[in-house]
């Protein structure tokens, strides 16, 4: 009962009804979506999930990470490498992947927070670690070096134990992850730890002064965030079946992860989801618009313009504005 109250407390009946309808739609979606629409839905869920993971650090605890590709890349590479070299399936591999990513997160966090790097300086530290790892993977033959790591594609085989199969399998896998992360974040926000995070985000020194264990709370934030991001990396590696250091650890990948929550609304639970819909929708729309023109870069220009408009028009994100329109603002917040 108390868990239920934690989950839905404060939400209006109207908001709950809308949420239930959304969930029902998502569960039933593969039955009526075509292959193209399904692939777009998969992309949206992926960005919603990984955005939720990043949001824990930046949106809740206020620590700007621009190097989250590190955890996704490590997760993907480790699970894919274990499967490729030793035939160890991703369900086991994911545990190793998460463990390594959490360790990496703790190293970055320990160094950053111990030396109290904040803001831009901490962000640069995360970028540096991600770039450092990218170059290391470029020269690591176990992981395929710069030539990349490829997983065998077996057409028509559905093997849930090894996460091999078609789009529907991956759709449900990422849906479960995204819903799980959403529930987890809600529970975290309602917990003592969540309140501590918000206190740290608003004013770390004041939080320290009133006895919030600032360092430990930040470490927990980066560990949880890295763990979830690593799972996204594992999923990503098995969905696309290939990994290259140049893309897996690229700064562009890290930035991609940050966009959905920033555009949707930092620190909100629905921000990453709304942001993922907006960004993926825009991306697909501009792809369609510019496809027949065959000019590379044109799509990105539209994309950049759209980002510019959003950040000028809705600097706090789309969700707070949308929530007001839908009449689903939470009570007492």
């Amino acid at each position, binding site marked *: 009962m108390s868990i239920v109250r934690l989950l839905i407390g404060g939400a209006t009946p109207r908001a709950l009804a809308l949420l239930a309808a959304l969930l029902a739609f998502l569960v039933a979606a593969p039955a009526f979506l075509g292959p193209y629409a399904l692939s777009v839905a998969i992309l949206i869920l992926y960005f919603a999930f990984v955005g939720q993971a990043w949001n824990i650090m*930046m949106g809740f605890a206020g620590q*700007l990470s*621009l190097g989250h590709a590190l955890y996704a890349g490590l997760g993907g590479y480790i699970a894919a490498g274990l499967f490729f070299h030793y035939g160890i399936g991703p369900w086991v591999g994911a545990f190793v992947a998460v463990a390594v990513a959490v360790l990496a997160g703790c190293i970055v966090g320990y*160094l950053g927070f111990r*030396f109290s*790097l*904040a*803001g*831009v*300086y901490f*962000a*640069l*530290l995360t*970028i*540096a*670690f991600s*770039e*450092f790892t990218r*170059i*290391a993977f*470029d*020269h690591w033959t176990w992981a395929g070096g*710069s030539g990349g790591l490829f997983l065998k594609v077996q057409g028509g085989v559905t093997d849930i134990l090894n996460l091999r199969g078609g789009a529907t399998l991956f759709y449900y896998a990422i849906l479960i992850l995204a819903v799980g992360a959403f529930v987890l974040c809600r529970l975290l926000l309602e917990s003592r730890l969540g309140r501590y995070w918000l206190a740290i985000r608003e004013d770390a020194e004041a939080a320290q002064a009133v006895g919030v264990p600032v360092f430990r709370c930040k470490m927990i934030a980066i560990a949880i965030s890295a763990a979830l991001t690593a799972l996204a990396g594992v999923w990503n590696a098995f969905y696309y079946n290939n990994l290259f250091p140049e893309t897996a650890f690229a*700064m*562009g990948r890290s*930035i991609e992860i*940050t*966009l959905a929550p*920033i*555009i949707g609304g*930092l620190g909100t639970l629905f921000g990453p989801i709304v942001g993922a819909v907006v960004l993926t929708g825009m991306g697909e729309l501009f792809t369609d618009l510019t496809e027949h023109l065959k*000019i*590379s*870069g*044109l799509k*990105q*220009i539209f*994309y*950049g*313009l759209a*980002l*510019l408009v959003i*950040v*000028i028009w809705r*600097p706090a994100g789309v969700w707070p504005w949308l929530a007001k329109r839908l009449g689903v603002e939470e009570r007492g917040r």
Partner: protein
Amino acid sequence: MDFALAFAQAITKGLLTGMVYGLMALGLSVIFGVMRVVNFAHGEIMVVGMYLAWLGFELAGVSPLVSLPAIALLFFAAGYALQAGLITPFINRPEHQQFLLLLAIAILLVNVCLVLAGPDARGVQSEAMFDSYAIGPLVLDAVRVHAALAAIAIAGLLWAFFTRTRTGKSIRAAADNHMSALVVGLDVRRLYAFTFGVGSACVGAAGALMITIVPVNPFLAAEYTLLAFVIVIVGGLGSMTGALLGGLLIGVSEAVAGLLLQPSLKSMFSFGLLILVLLLRPQGLFGGKAGT
């Protein structure tokens, strides 16, 4: 003996390239030091400068060293307008909003270059490229020497601007204490626009110099942004001499890493250095004040 010579050669090459790196980083450092805005579009502005210098050479045969003042002036105006028009409302906003704004600008700049010039590398090729100066057994590429000398001259001009002119001194005053600058009646918004203009002019000039050494493609932009960050953090954010010395240090470390290890490992060296500096001396090797 051969190795000693190759080593000395690599170090001088690194020092010369490092001067241009330093000028690029100087632009970033000036903007951050005064406004506390991190210019995530820095490498993109640099690449636009490289393309303009290349264009001048392709269309009219103008050497980048000759078109440099025009490019710097143009970039000053563009930077001024950008700050006055777009960035000013974001000065006191949270960091992530500034980041998103400059990221959007970066995406626009780099893709306009991609649409107009294509993904292929564009370089400036002339006979002067093969000239060289010999100092004893050392052979220095003429283009590198010219670029380094020009970078030093521009840095000197900048130093004179910040220490000798009224506007330069006012900018430093506004950087030291925003509130007091407002109290004594400085037009801080105009000074900020001026600062972004000066920073852009610096990086535009660095671009015009860089194109004489390295061919340009749109994908270099993100690399230069990162490189500029590495340099200013290593040297000390907001410190002018720090940016220049940091540029030299990174230039030399890249050249030496390229000689001793594989060239593809050279940036690992820079990022390793960045991590060490961030942890042990976050105010930078040459920065006086602690970084906050």
